[in-house]
């Protein structure tokens, strides 16, 4: 059970944070199709910074500090990269779908170009000597003690980065709904002319929305590189950015439902990748594996379930009304 939840969280958290990234951008009125690209770029920058610092001989003993530096670098990298989208969508009023697609093409190309120049091979890794994972001992839990469920999930074999991301997710969700900034940002995605008429600088809010989106997607990319890819950046995040986009639509641009959608998807994904090892009630029988269903059925499951749920919920889907429309101050 604990294993199942932990594995689900590994998929769920990056998905959630990147879907929230999309939400911030789209709630401000800019379609962010570039999540995948920004993730790739963020993952690369995060890994690169950790590598540079530890190659310089610093921080070998402070893995957790390095982790924070990596996170910050990934976020800043993602934020800067997303500015390319902001410029094209906001200043140049270009088609946002095309702009986003361009970034999705640019990120892997750029990252691979740089990785090969830097390492001469196709990947860049965090040094193998660094272990960012925390074990029970790090939390002061004595060896041999029986772990309860909470300790199993949160205090053994965990990456702190996931908990940082979760914290950030909660904080940003609260900001989106209960602050002046959040109210204004959402108004720009729904009715920019209304926002403009009460003196809100729509384009500025959209810049902020896209940049927050970029930092979060960068973070999501780094989480992916750290956990799922074992500390490597390869110019690929396995379509996670697109999946996050799906989770965002699926979650109706709302942080709470996004978390739910991400959980459903993460759980399915977790079953697909580890159904042989899942012991549901702890009796030593691997029920799913014994069913004799092809592993491919499990693999298809998360995608198929998303499709089916979408088919039933699409009628209630409410995208921000003004997303994708450039705002022109001069227009009434």
């Amino acid at each position, binding site marked *: 059970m604990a294993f199942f939840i932990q594995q689900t969280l590994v998929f769920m958290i990056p998905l959630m944070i990147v879907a929230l990234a999309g939400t911030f951008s789209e709630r401000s009125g800019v379609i962010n199709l570039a999540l995948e690209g920004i993730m790739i770029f963020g993952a690369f920058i995060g890994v690169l910074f950790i590598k540079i610092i530890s190659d310089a001989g610093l921080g070998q003993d402070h893995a957790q500090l390095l982790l924070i530096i990596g996170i910050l670098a990934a976020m800043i990298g993602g934020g800067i990269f997303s500015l390319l989208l902001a410029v094209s969508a906001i200043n140049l*009023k270009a088609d946002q779908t095309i702009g986003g697609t361009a970034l999705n093409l640019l990120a892997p190309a750029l990252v691979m170009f740089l990785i090969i120049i830097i390492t001469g091979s196709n990947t860049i890794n965090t040094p193998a000597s660094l272990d960012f994972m925390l074990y029970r001992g790090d939390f002061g839990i004595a060896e041999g003690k029986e772990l309860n469920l909470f300790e199993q999930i949160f205090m053994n074999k965990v990456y702190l980065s996931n908990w940082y991301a979760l914290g950030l997710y909660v904080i940003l969700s609260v900001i989106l709904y209960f602050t002046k900034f959040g109210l204004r940002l959402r108004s720009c995605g729904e009715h920019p002319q209304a926002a403009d008429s009460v003196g809100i600088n729509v384009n500025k809010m959209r810049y902020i929305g896209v940049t927050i989106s970029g930092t979060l997607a960068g973070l999501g990319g780094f989480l992916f590189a750290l956990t799922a890819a074992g500390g490597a950046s390869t110019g690929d995040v396995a379509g996670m950015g697109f999946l996050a986009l799906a989770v965002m639509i699926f979650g109706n641009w709302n942080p709470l439902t996004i978390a739910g959608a991400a959980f459903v998807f993460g759980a399915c994904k977790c079953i697909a990748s580890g159904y042989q090892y899942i012991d549901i009630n702890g009796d030593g029988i691997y029920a799913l594996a014994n069913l004799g269903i092809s592993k491919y059925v499990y693999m*298809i499951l998360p995608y198929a379930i*998303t499709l089916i749920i979408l088919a039933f919920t699409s009628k209630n889907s409410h995208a921000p009304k003004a997303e994708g429309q450039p705002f022109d101050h001069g227009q009434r």
Partner: protein
Amino acid sequence: MTFIFLFLILAVIIGGFSVYAILTTKKAKANGYETWLMKFYAKDSVKTIISSVTAILLGLLVGCLFLIMFVGSEMSGRSISGFDLIDALQLIFFGGFNTGRNEFGSLIYGWNGVSLGNMLFRATPLILTGLSVGVAYKTGLFNIGAPGQYLMGTAAALIVSLTIPSDVIPPFIIWIIAFLSAIIAGALWASIVGLFKAFLNVNEVITCIMTNWIAAILVTSLFDKTTGPFNFLLDPSGDKNYKFVYKTAHNGVETIKLGLDKLFPGSQINAGIIVAILIAILMFIIINKTTFGYSLKSCGSNKHAAQYAGINSKLYITLSMAIAGGLAAAGAALYYLSGNTEFTWSTYQSLPAIGFNGIPVALLASCNPIGIIFSASFMAYLDISGLQIRNMTMYNEYISSIVSALIVYFSAFALIFKQILSGKIKLFRKKKEDISNAVDTRFKEEDYNVDKKEETDSKEVETTEEGGTE
């Protein structure tokens, strides 16, 4: 040296032409008549081409800057030298014509049949995936599901071409059956997306993403080493872990060459490129000359007006996705039925890039089917240039991917370019003159203001009605 010489000639031609253009236009304007050049320039299509070319040039320019930025950086022990830079700068433009180095170590150019032939061979599936994205776009759908459709087409083409015994049925007939079954497989697969969009109003981007992955897993399962129903099609002589499906030549099925291999000796080229070009022309005719195309475009430009006019938009959305899927799958069929390409699919972690590359191809050509032939060839040419850069310099082939991404980025500004070209946006505004011009025209457009008001008005209505659009 040839390279510099070529460049000089080009510069002289462009410079001379610009001087001619400016002088004649000035004279014509002063005397109130139009030159052929002005008439030519006034055409919308010409402006589209000019803005696409501008995007290409800007992309190449920024790509060159990238190359320059990395001079002197170390790469696995050796640093990138100024010579690498000079070579790479040449190759990014003329890579397809590079024929090696001369005895002094400098690059020489000429007819490189292998490179150019391979370029056309690579362009073949790109034209079709580009058409796939382009046709869907005309109907207002963003088809990022081409990778999945491409995979379904691949599977269908391979299974059909390898299982029908060639001693019973002539290989040429098998080729046609395989080609058609690929198209049907792709069309059926893509119509899932179309049906979801038309009847349930599910955003096509998200269904495309989901069906892509489902297609990838399905195809993987078909050719699974142990459990796949078609694992007997795997070539046993291959690598233990990455088993390839037999080349279709194994069953004698190969695309005919039509003598193209004589023109491009040593390359993979075959008649597939001609088929692709014919399909592009066919699509051009369908979209621009027929009632069917008119209906498709109506649904894409304004689905409400299409509905008002009695056009069954649900039908056309589904049909346009099906056509898009068929086109992407046809691209796969042309690629794999060539007889000399291998297919392996043992992972579900990524999707075939050719499918995604249809997007830049279509966007660069503004989704015009004829334009797509050229943009696909250009993208393939960039690829070849990238390979030459990797082979001949210390840089790597990804520079060409960077350039093509940049071109897409800049082509997003096509609208702005077009407005600048037609003088709607002035780069340097002269205030006073504007006012006096305005006085002259104002009584011609008395209800300009009404129009403006109405436009935003209806925009508001439009947006309240729209569900999720991506």
